[in-house]
């Protein structure tokens, strides 16, 4: 509690210092928007339809990308666990893809899909599917052997063992994968929108810069940070809340 108050106080002091620095002319208002200009800039952006609509577009794309990534990534992760030789063959590749700068491939997707939602959602899909596959496999691999043995002692057939024992035990781990996937998808989609001037929130930041609307640009960037942060916080809460105790 005290810590968060200190954090807010620190932020307020920073804002006041920036305001003073701009008003005194130490830094140009063309470089740093004075914090007092932000509320009115936000209202203007809101009025021009640059806030709610674009945020909705971005979130919808992130969800679509994650749903597709889950539909493909969860069975894939399951397969990598079920057939250990496939797991051994492909998991290092997927791990390497996780560390590789895959987002840099976007010009290729522009060539393939054109400058549109197909490209942004596909970027989100790639970003999301990798952690989903890895976490799903990990979740199944982490199912305690005791649980499986209990199922076997009840003479559950192999399919029942997966459906009634392994899958329920793996759900929390799979959810972790989906949560990571959704955040990666969101972040990559916003970045992509900024880069190709297309879509929702990311496009607004780029547009404000090219229009040289400095306060509007700061508002758009702060909005992106807020949306990312809210997403992260809400999903972590949701995960602890859903996790069986």
């Amino acid at each position, binding site marked *: 509690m*005290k*810590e*968060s108050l*200190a*954090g807010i106080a*620190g*932020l307020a002091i920073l804002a006041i210092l920036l305001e003073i620095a701009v008003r005194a002319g130490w830094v140009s208002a*063309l*470089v*740093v928007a004075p914090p007092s200009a932000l509320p009115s800039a936000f209202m203007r952006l809101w009025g021009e339809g640059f806030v709610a609509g674009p945020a909705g577009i971005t979130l919808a794309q992130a969800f679509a990308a994650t749903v597709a990534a889950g539909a493909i990534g969860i069975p894939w992760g399951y397969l990598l666990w079920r057939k250990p*030789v*496939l797991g*051994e*063959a*492909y998991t290092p*590749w997927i791990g*390497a893809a996780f*560390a*590789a*700068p895959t*987002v*840099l*491939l976007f*010009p*290729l997707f*522009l*060539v*393939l899909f054109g400058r549109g939602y197909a490209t942004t959602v596909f970027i989100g899909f790639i970003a999301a599917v990798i952690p989903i596959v890895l976490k799903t496999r990990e979740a199944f691999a982490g199912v305690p052997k005791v649980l499986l043995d209990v199922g076997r002692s009840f003479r559950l057939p192999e399919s029942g063992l997966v459906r009634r024992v392994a899958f329920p035990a793996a759900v929390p781990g799979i959810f972790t994968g989906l949560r990571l996937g959704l*955040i990666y998808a969101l*972040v*990559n989609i*916003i*970045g992509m929108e*900024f*880069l190709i001037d297309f879509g929702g929130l*990311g496009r607004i*930041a*780029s547009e*404000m*810069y090219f229009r040289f609307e*400095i306060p509007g*640009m*700061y508002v*758009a*960037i702060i909005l*992106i*940070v*807020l949306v*990312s*942060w809210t*997403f*992260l916080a809400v999903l972590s809460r949701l995960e602890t809340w859903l996790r069986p105790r």
Partner: protein
Amino acid sequence: MAATQIRVLTLIVLLALWEATARSGLLYQDVVPSLMKITSAFLRMLFEAQTWHHFAVSAWEIGAGLVIGYVLGVAFGLAAGTRRFFGAAVAPYVDGIATAPKIVFLPIVMLLAGTGIASKLALGALSAFFPVAINTAASVRQVNPVLVRVGRSLRLTRWQMATRIYLPALRPSLVTSLRLGFGLAVVGVLLAEIKLSNAGLGFLANEHYSLYRVPDLYAVLLLVFIVAVGLNSAMGRFAERG
């Protein structure tokens, strides 16, 4: 079948599918260029002087950005990890900015540092800073408290505590931080180059894209991936030996 055989087989199937798509004529010319075209573009690129000029620009931006972001990130992480109150107070802001895509800060960075090399370097530093700071702060909290108490009982100064107690105890985590920071610095710098620049591999890729030289585009991205993935796994091996 062993894992290696599966991998080799997969590679062959993928490459064959690629080549079949390229030659099928189903897609517009060069959207999926044939492997021959990509290979020859790659080899041609290796012998062009301008490739290495752009390579050097990107390497400088990534390297210098990484060093700045890394040093500041470790220092910040040490402060946030050792001083609980400060750490808890800044955590929500650090986490928030760390999650957001760094490339959207490019407009601010360009207003401050111009549109040249300095802005790419700064974006690389910004991208590297956050994972390094968060990883360092988390590892500081896991340093064996006995070591910290020994340091205190010897009345070490703050600087001595950092250099004699924390940094040696954090060695494995420092290598991990370097890998994380490097990966994000590469992405930050190259995306910034693609968005707005006149030099660097990102700029080169964007040129090829605008002029629809797709095989050359593949060649540049291939070079970036070979170097990035190679350095990353080298650091990984270094960490294991550590």
